[in-house]
């Protein structure tokens, strides 16, 4: 109970931090819309409404990916810069429980960008989502948001030990669009990249969104997504403990 309260309060305060800056807020609002616009303009050339729906859903997920991988991978680095990293590490609360609410706060921002993109698609491109199965569609959006945040969380934890590892997150931003099959079908990717795509939870979440929209069963996709996402969290938690112990032992870089 106390733990739950802790998670909620920390989530709310971290959310306040994220909402704070109008400039950052602006880019979080506008970037996903711009990417969606670009993708949809390309797809519109074909004049195929099914392809437009495909791109519209993909663009929504792309928005979360873009707004979250970078910010989530810089999460630990941000704490380090503020000088709060060593304080949260020195607190009796396990480190992963410190990071979890921050990740959730980021996911919430991501959720916003999905909704904004869907509205934008509808308003500007007349893509009315013909969703056959709304509950499953909403569930897959939520899963996409959360798993993307968890993926960022996993990358972020490595910054405890490697000061500049956030650059990896930044570098993954665009390859991620392709690897997760947001706007380009996965079949077009070379075979060697398939395993990577499959290991990325957002791939399955987007598949789930599409299946739900088309009225097909999304159960399989979501089940895999639901397994991969927590696996990220577990891995990040385990890695977090290991890396903090490494930082306490080697002090490179120092936590301060």
């Amino acid at each position, binding site marked *: 109970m*106390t733990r739950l*309260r*802790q998670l909620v*309060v*920390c989530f709310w*305060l971290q959310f*306040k*931090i994220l909402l*704070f*800056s109008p400039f950052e807020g602006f880019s979080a609002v506008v970037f996903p819309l711009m990417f969606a616009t670009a993708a949809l303009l390309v797809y519109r050339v074909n004049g195929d409404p099914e392809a437009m729906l495909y791109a519209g859903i993909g663009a929504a997920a792309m928005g979360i990916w873009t707004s979250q991988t970078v910010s989530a991978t810089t999460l630990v680095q941000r704490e380090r810069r*503020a*000088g*709060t990293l*060593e*304080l*949260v*590490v*020195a*607190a*009796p*609360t396990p480190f992963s429980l*410190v990071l979890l609410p921050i990740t959730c706060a980021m996911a919430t921002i991501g959720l916003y960008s999905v909704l904004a993109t869907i509205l934008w698609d509808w308003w500007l491109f007349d893509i009315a989502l013909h969703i056959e199965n709304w509950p499953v569609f909403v569930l897959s959006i939520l899963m996409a948001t959360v798993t993307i945040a968890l993926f960022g969380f996993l990358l972020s934890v490595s910054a405890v030990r490697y000061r500049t590892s956030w650059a990896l997150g930044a570098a993954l931003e665009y390859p991620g669009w392709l690897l997760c099959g947001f706007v380009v079908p996965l079949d077009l990717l070379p075979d060697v990249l398939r395993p990577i795509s499959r290991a990325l939870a957002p791939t399955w979440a987007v598949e789930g969104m599409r299946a739900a929209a088309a009225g097909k069963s999304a159960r399989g996709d979501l089940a895999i997504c639901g397994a991969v996402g927590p696996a990220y969290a577990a891995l990040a938690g385990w890695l977090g403990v290991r890396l903090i*112990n490494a930082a*306490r*032992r*080697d*002090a*490179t870089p120092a*936590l*301060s």
Partner: protein
Amino acid sequence: MTLAVEAIDLRRTFTSRSGTFRRTRKDVEAVKGVSFEIAPGELFGLLGPNGAGKTTTIKMLITLLIPTSGRANVLGHDVVHDVREVRRRIGYVFGGDRGLYERLSGLDNLRYFSELYGVPPREQKKRIGELLELVGLTGREGERVEGYSRGMRQRLHIARGLLHDPDVFFLDEPSIGIDPVGARELRATIAGLREQGKTVLLTTHYMFEADELCDRIAVIRSGEIVAEGTPAELKGLVSAGRVLEVETYGIGDEAVAARAQSAAYAPSWSRSAASCRCWSSRASPAPRSPSRCWRSWGRRVSVGSATATRRWRTPMSSW
């Protein structure tokens, strides 16, 4: 009675890397066998110059660094193995203006850390109110920290460190960057903590600060404790003798050590009770220009060395 803090031969080595293409690794011994004991309710000072190893010592005690060797207990809990127990019972505050969430208000910062330190929800509000009162931030707590002055941040830090009512409080140079009036108030706050029965370990660069506050002081230099005692005892030591510092060039450590023990120098050796040291600097075998020499000597004027300090350079030939 369990000691509040017990450090037994603590050592810590850092490996520093330099160079971009040809990386070289160098081991720095930051703390070289530090031992001390702090009784419950005592206000203990670690006094020393920059780079002496004060922060490193504190970080080992608050579980942020694992000692290379040696042991330490806080309230009877081992700092390497009983991490959770130690963390629950200690507070940690460092000087400077980092370590706060700039975008949150002072109050929100305190709420955040109350949660992380497991302050029971029922008590939080009252506790935060009391602490804001204690550090004199009542009325400003709603403002964002980015608008706080340095002194206000420092005071907020102290409130943060006290949220969970720790039994042992570690303060690393808390008076850095604070004006004299603020520093005096800070000292009053720290003295108040002792009156409440808290154990405090304070590090500082300033002799007067340690003198005014501490029950006992350890002087640390280059990772070693060179003197320990009550402020009065330390002052007694300092005026008892002269400090002789001899810098040599181009001879080995063994020869220096032999000289240091030789009878000829014994009188001056024993007279300089507090710290008499001799070392060779092989790094610069050629005599350096007087001004450089002087500067390098100036740096060796360490905290705790005497009022009547005399230094001279013995030419190689006389050895």
